[in-house]
């Protein structure tokens, strides 16, 4: 008997009656709590030590430019579906003046094999669907390793938990490595994307999307259970909330 058949046969012998009571879902369900509270969302994000800017619709480009300037970013990667105007103001102003010190350590630590590639354009736009096969993956790795900031949109966000969900199949959120390797992640969240609770976010997704749920910057509690921000993921998360 194959391992599969044997394990399944064991399960059939072991388990009790098939009839089960329906799952009681008396908790606060999706769609019962109205839209997400933007102030609560911002407060939760700050609690995780994410940086938050709340702006009007016509201020997004300025807010992104200000954030990238404050960060001292030199090369920004973004998803192909991100509106070009979000980063246009920053790109037009030129990258960091030579006198400004970079706020992040040099990206040499991020280099994999050999020297980091030099990015000629200040903004690189990355396609979501990385084709099967080696070269495209390698190119993606090199670009994200050389960039010092990434700008994306999101799919949905949860006010109660300060969570931002990226749908990596969407053109404005990019493949997974895009938002993982650079040390600084800037996310633009539109007001209507903010929902009240976790069930609302689960309802807004479906299980076949490749997703990352992000709640604050990378953190660990492994040393004496004290929270330390910044291990392997982006050490700085900045959120522009469009009210």
């Amino acid at each position, binding site marked *: 008997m194959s391992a599969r058949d044997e*394990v399944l046969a064991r399960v059939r012998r*072991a388990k009790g009656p098939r009839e089960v009571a329906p799952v*009681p879902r008396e*908790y606060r369900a999706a769609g019962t709590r109205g839209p997400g509270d933007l102030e609560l969302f911002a407060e939760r994000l700050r609690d995780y030590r994410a940086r938050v800017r709340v702006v009007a619709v016509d201020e997004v480009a300025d807010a992104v430019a200000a954030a990238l300037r404050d960060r001292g970013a030199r090369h920004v990667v973004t998803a192909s579906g991100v509106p070009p105007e979000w980063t246009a103001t920053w790109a037009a102003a030129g990258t960091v003046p030579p006198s400004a010190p970079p706020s992040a350590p040099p990206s040499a630590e991020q280099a994999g094999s050999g020297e980091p590639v030099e990015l000629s354009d200040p903004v690189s736009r990355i396609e979501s669907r990385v084709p099967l096969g080696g070269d495209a993956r390698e190119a993606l790795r090199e670009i994200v390793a050389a960039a010092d900031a990434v700008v994306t949109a999101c799919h949905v966000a949860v006010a109660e938990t300060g969570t931002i969900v990226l749908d990596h199949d969407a053109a404005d959120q990019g493949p997974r490595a895009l938002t993982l390797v650079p040390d600084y992640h800037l996310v633009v969240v539109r007001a209507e994307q903010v929902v009240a609770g976790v069930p609302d976010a689960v309802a807004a997704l479906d299980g*076949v999307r490749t997703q990352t*749920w992000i709640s604050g910057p990378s953190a660990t*509690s492994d*040393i004496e*259970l004290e929270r330390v921000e*910044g291990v392997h993921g982006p050490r700085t998360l900045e959120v522009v909330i469009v009210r």
Partner: protein
Amino acid sequence: MTTFLGMPAGGGNLTGEPFPKAAREALGNAQLRRNLAKATGTIRAKRANVVGELPDWAQLRAAGAAIKDEVLANLDEHLVRFEEALTSRGTHVHWARDAGEANRIVADLVRATGTREVIKVKSMATVEIGLNEALAGIGVHAVETDLAELIVQLGKDKSSHILVPAIHRNRSEIRDVFRREMPGVDPDLTDDPRALAEAARRHLRHKFMTVDVAISGANFGVAETGSLVVVESEGNGRMCLTLPRTLISVVGIEKLVPRWQDLEVFLQLLPRSSTGERMNPYTSVWTGPTEGQTSHVVLVDNGRTATLADPDGRAALRCIRCSACLNSCPVYERTGGHAYGSTYPGPIGAVLSPQLTGVDRNPTLPFASSLCGVCYDVCPVAIDIPAMLVHLRGRVASAKGTTPESTAMRALAWAMADARRWRRLVRLGRFGRLASRHVPLPGWSTARDLPQPPKETFRDWWESSR
């Protein structure tokens, strides 16, 4: 065999020294007790705080328990559906009866890639089956990338906690391990947790960018979609799941939930119960191979069907490995995790480990508890651990057959079955006043005084003073 219905038991890292012996050694370590009291005290307060924030915690807990029971009641069907969903998207599904078979499957897959090194996401299932040791046997080095697992690995230590394997180490002990064992580390590394995390980041960055095979577990598998979910904090999980070309996920067969919607319950229960956060920093969900990867899933039994076979013990398979019961347990807080001798320590380990291995191979763990019940109160899927401990003690006792204790209990039952017989015997008990001074009861009287029977029985006193 003492597993139920003769169901084959699990192997791997699930047994150790008898608990009383190991606990005695651990209790002699004052540093360990200080480290544990500090860490578990911190996490208990955080958990209570964020659980108290949710007005519907009790309802979420009831739903969590019911969803897991639903999975267990029709586990065969959910497994088949899960397998179909995975295969239809191009994931290769493998099945393993036990630890040895799971290790062989993973070793063969790794060998086929030609790599000498794999990176690992923190996974209890792979610790349970002893995968790192098995890979070392074929000359492949498994690099643990979770900070606490890395501390344990570099220190040639053992995990002592489900969530924070290095909970028994304080910051200066961790600094010493890093200074001694981490290649290229700053010799002046301080014990500031920030500096230690930064050292780990530098150490692992190169591995993430160059190693092409990753091994993960999964917190949940969604039967209807074939989605896998990994819940983590540091981003090491995302690194391992995203960058390598080959991803092998080792998943216990009880990890399923029926529907995508069910995650709305568990993504609230798990982070608040485990790290005491409203949400963990990163949760990855993927369905089938993503971004050009080759993806394998290894479904592991290793004693889970033996656990499923016991109607009074199967609820232990609801466990979502949050570790709230460890952090709350007065016994765990004093002995630490190593005393349990199993990958799964603490209250849940005391009920899960003996069921996975059969109680004959773990006969002391069901007694590693004061039955205070706090583990049940904090369990996000309402596993009645105290009741299960009592049940398993019964299984241990019946497996032992006739002992002096069981004979004494049978004699007592006979004596108490008849009022007059009982009365006569209780009167005789007065002669025990002599015996109690002179007859030692080894094992019992070394730490206690044998109570003296009274001069007069209650019944006699009642009749004479009425």
